[in-house]
């Protein structure tokens, strides 16, 4: 009888049950939070560098476009001056021929033609379309390779724009990662809240909240790995 009575008495539940487990989980979450914060800081540093580089390349590209515009204006101006003088020289020579060899008008036309030709010859020396072998006419009387000139003159600016785009893409990628790490840290904050709440509750509820916290912790860990490998 005495034995039977002693068996039916319920054992008191230890109020500190699972407390150590929750403390360990809390500390693990703290360490993971510190690591995610570190990864977030790194992502933000890389985003800042990408942002800075993209601005710098945009500035350099704008400067190069400005310089290239000035150069093109100069080159085209010299070239058009050469063409005008060369054509005037030809026309004046033609006019002199039409006037007859002994007339004063013919002599004046011939003189004008000589002067125009001298101007054209000088302008030709200044023209990149005749001095640079990449653009100079390949045959006598041929035309300069304007397409090659256009391609070359915009190459430097295009190169800078390509670098600028790459830096901007870098910025976007790392900025997105940094934002995601912030979201993960929000989940970890919720996890810490759940573990903290668990400590204040009865053992059964403590276990339940600890399970919720572990699920949130696992989700945060999984998301962190996804972001890391992306």
């Amino acid at each position: 009888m005495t034995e039977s009575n002693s068996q039916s008495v319920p054992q008191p539940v230890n109020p500190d049950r699972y407390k150590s487990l929750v403390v360990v989980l809390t500390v693990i979450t703290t360490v993971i939070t510190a690591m995610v914060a570190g990864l977030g800081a790194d992502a933000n540093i890389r985003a800042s560098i990408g942002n800075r580089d993209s601005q710098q390349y945009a500035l350099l590209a704008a400067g190069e476009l400005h310089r290239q515009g000035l150069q093109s204006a100069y080159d085209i101006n010299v070239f058009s001056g050469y063409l005008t003088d060369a054509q005037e020289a030809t026309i004046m020579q033609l006019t002199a021929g039409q006037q007859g060899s002994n007339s004063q008008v013919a002599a004046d036309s011939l003189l004008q033609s000589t002067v125009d030709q001298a101007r054209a010859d000088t302008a030709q020396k200044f023209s990149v379309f005749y001095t640079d072998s990449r653009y100079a006419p390949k045959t006598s009387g041929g035309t300069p390779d304007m397409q090659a000139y256009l391609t070359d003159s915009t190459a430097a600016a295009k190169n800078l724009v390509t670098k600028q785009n790459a830096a901007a893409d870098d910025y976007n990628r790392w900025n997105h990662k940094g934002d995601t790490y912030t979201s993960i840290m929000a989940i970890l904050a919720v996890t810490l809240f759940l573990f903290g709440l668990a400590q204040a509750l009865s053992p059964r509820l403590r276990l339940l909240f600890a399970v919720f916290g572990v699920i949130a912790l696992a989700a945060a860990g999984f998301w962190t790995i996804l972001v890391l490998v992306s």
Partner: protein
Amino acid sequence: MNNSSWTDSPRLDIIIAALIAIVSTTFALAAWRINMVSSNAGDASRQGILNGIKKQAFTNENWRQTYTEASSAETYAVYLAEVDALDASGNPAAVAQAANLRQYLLPNLQLLANPLATDPIYQNPDGTYNLQKRFDALEAASPDLRDLDPQASFQLADRYYAEQRWLTVATVLLAISLFWLALAEISGKRMRLPTLIIGAGVYGVGLVALAVIEVLFYFLRGGVL
């Protein structure tokens, strides 16, 4: 026996609590320093961008001046050729015209084409002008431009960013140390001392790492904190 009583004593509790407080304070200080370094990096980057904008504005102006002078110099050279052709024609009217052009027009054109048309250092053997040399001279002649070095600011920013990264790694060590110290606080008597030693050891490593990072980057930045 002695060891067992020592690990059970309240003194160890106090030591662990004090260590946790010290590590937490170190963590807070490290976080403050990381913030400061991050702010310095941002400032240096911003300064670099500002210097870049100013430098580009100077460079744009120097290219504009170079091509304006080049255009004037080319016009001068073409007129000079015209005057020479008139002179060489033998026609009295043309020779008189050349003399007038040489006396009244060419000096003014030469003035506009200065220094490309007047300074021999810019003249190529074929009679054309070395525009790159003229641009380089303009760049070198701008004292404000010489002081603007965006790359130096970017380099400084990169060093701050690198320090920020390493400081973050060191603070993760501090967090790990906190983990072990907290374990020591809740552990049974057997595990208490080993976990305390691990926690204190990791804290020591973290502290040394913080000091080394600070000193190393201080010298790398040329004595700038």
